[in-house]
């Protein structure tokens, strides 16, 4: 068990290294830098000055030197300064927004699990019932509607018409604190959280339904029934744990899906998270910020997979020993 986890963590290291090369390489491949186009916008500045700036920022150094400079300071938590936001440090920019995105992602994941798994189980136990058909219909709808469109509808119906939830931001006013701030945050996260989790909820529901149906038809469930186990025991002890195994794998990927989905959803709800920062940085070719966010998202996805693998080995004894 511990050996397995340690081995998984060791595999994590080369993957992290590959990740940094990809992130850096992609940023290099993108045409232009933060200073390109500026001379056209402001013809009064001597192009020579831009060249001096490039030299000062190290943009003219050979690629491997730039990579080394970047990676060695990144390892110490220093991603340099933003080229756009008046030279504020990248870490400072990200820190303020990272927590917001993390909360939103976790909130959305929680909604997904709380809604999708019970409905999936129910659908499997009573296939072709009204609720099963309803859930299937909702599932297709949820997968078919794009995030941003559902977000707009949600704002229109629940914020503008009904006024139940705020349509943007994370807090009503900066003054609130303590428990009020907590509930206020949750209140602000409801619409973006549901929007973000919609496709995931639909997917998990379908998966859960088919997994439970599959397991219910298996030989060991027949054995459990033949031993006289009650229906509850058969469902919660013998079925659920087996049905959850593929769901856990899916959840490893879900973290990546949530974070990339957040880029669009945060934009729709003007939610001050990493997604909005990422989008504006890409628009402004603010590469230090873009690279830092891409790297952090990549690491989160790797961590997500690591957690999924560890959970997997806890639930399924066959994984522990190869």
């Amino acid at each position: 068990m511990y050996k397995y986890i340690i081995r998984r963590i060791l595999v994590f290291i080369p993957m992290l290294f590959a990740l940094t090369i990809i992130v850096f390489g992609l940023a290099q491949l993108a045409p232009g830098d933060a200073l390109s186009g500026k001379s056209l916008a402001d013809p009064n500045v001597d192009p020579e000055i831009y060249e001096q700036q490039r030299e000062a920022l190290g943009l003219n150094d050979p690629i491997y030197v730039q990579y080394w400079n970047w990676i060695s300071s990144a390892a110490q938590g220093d991603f340099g300064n933003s080229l756009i936001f008046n030279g504020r440090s990248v870490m400072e920019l990200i820190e303020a927004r990272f927590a917001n995105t993390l909360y939103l992602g976790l909130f959305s994941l929680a909604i997904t699990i709380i809604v999708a798994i019970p409905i999936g189980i129910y659908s499997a136990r009573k296939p072709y019932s009204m609720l099963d058909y309803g859930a299937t219909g909702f599932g297709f709808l949820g997968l078919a509607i794009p995030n941003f469109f559902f977000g707009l509808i949600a704002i229109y119906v629940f914020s503008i018409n009904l006024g139940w939830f705020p349509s943007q931001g994370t807090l009503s006013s900066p003054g609130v604190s303590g428990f009020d701030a907590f509930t206020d945050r949750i209140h602000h996260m409801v619409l973006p959280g549901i929007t973000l989790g919609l496709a995931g909820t639909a997917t998990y529901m379908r998966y859960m339904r088919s997994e439970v149906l599959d397991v219910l038809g298996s030989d060991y469930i027949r054995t459990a029934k033949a031993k006289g186990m009650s229906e509850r025991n058969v469902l919660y002890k013998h079925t659920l744990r087996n049905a959850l195994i593929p769901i856990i794998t899916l959840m490893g990927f879900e973290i990546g899906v949530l974070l990339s989905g957040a880029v669009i959803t945060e934009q729709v709800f003007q939610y001050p998270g990493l997604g909005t920062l990422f989008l504006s940085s890409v628009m402004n070719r603010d590469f230090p910020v873009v690279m830092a966010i891409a790297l952090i998202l990549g690491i989160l996805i790797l961590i997500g997979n690591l957690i999924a693998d560890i959970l997997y080995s806890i639930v399924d004894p066959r994984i522990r020993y190869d």
Partner: protein
Amino acid sequence: MTGNPLLEVTGLKTYFYLEDNLVARAVDGVDFTINEGETLAIVGESGSGKSITSLSIMQLVNRPGKIIEGTISLEDDDLLKKSSKQMTKIRGNEIAMIFQEPMTALNPVYTIGNQIIETIKKHKNLSKPAARERAIELLKLVGFPRAKEVMDEYPHQLSGGMRQRAMIAMAISCDPKLLIADEPSTALDVTIQAQVLDLLMEMKERLNMSILLITHDLGVVAEYADRVLVMYGGQIVEETEVESIFEDTKHPYTIGLLNSLPSLDKDVERLGAIKGSVPPAHSFPKGCRFADRCPHAMDQCRESNPELLSIAPNHKVRCYLYEQGGRSNGNRTRTTSKTKI
């Protein structure tokens, strides 16, 4: 050596309601009795209804299958009148069952110990340590020398034969009166098959159980059974003691089954085979269900289905050849009897 009737099945019909209004008559009017301490074998091809008969006794037939008629009495107590909750007290306790596929019949995510203990705790009023003690004893009884370690192992760590042993330990954990073994050795290596069946018989003697042995292997029948039911098309076509099934075979289907067995004391070029295959359970012919494959089929056979007829004490057969005394059986019955494998 056999005592009072333990389980009596009368007029059992289990039908499957398929799409397009088709009804598969998987078990279609089956009567039989299992006596205390007896091993009754049900033999038949795939699709003859033998497994569905056993699942019907346990009331574990899945949708779209349904028991529509009949009685299943365990010591004069009709199981079909019991609620599903009452049935959970019968299953695993009074009647236990083991299955064909030991590889998939145990839950892969729980230890062997966990799965045996939960059975004991369900039916016996034992504390957890006491149940654990009993589980270890059971594992020793079925031949695990390192029973204590096996308790904490998972099914995937055991071989097929060992898993079947663990299944047997689980099945006998609550001293059932009847053990249903649905092809318990079919999925195992030949060398392991005999070990597992011998173990079953040893447990039977020790615990004074009855066994309902579902199999398609006549060699197994010859070796282990006291009485045999031959099933075809959801019905019993011949029922008799194990000796007479080999020495005084009556039904043309049973004769066909025996002819398709290799024999040790006769060298033949080709093994016999029964032409054709079992008709699908949703479209049985009007007459005898075996008529289309039967070498002795008469006009009468295609008109109506014969009744199960008693032709001698403890020998019943469903065939027009034996009505009103029938013809003499010498020219049709098989004479070689040594078919043990």
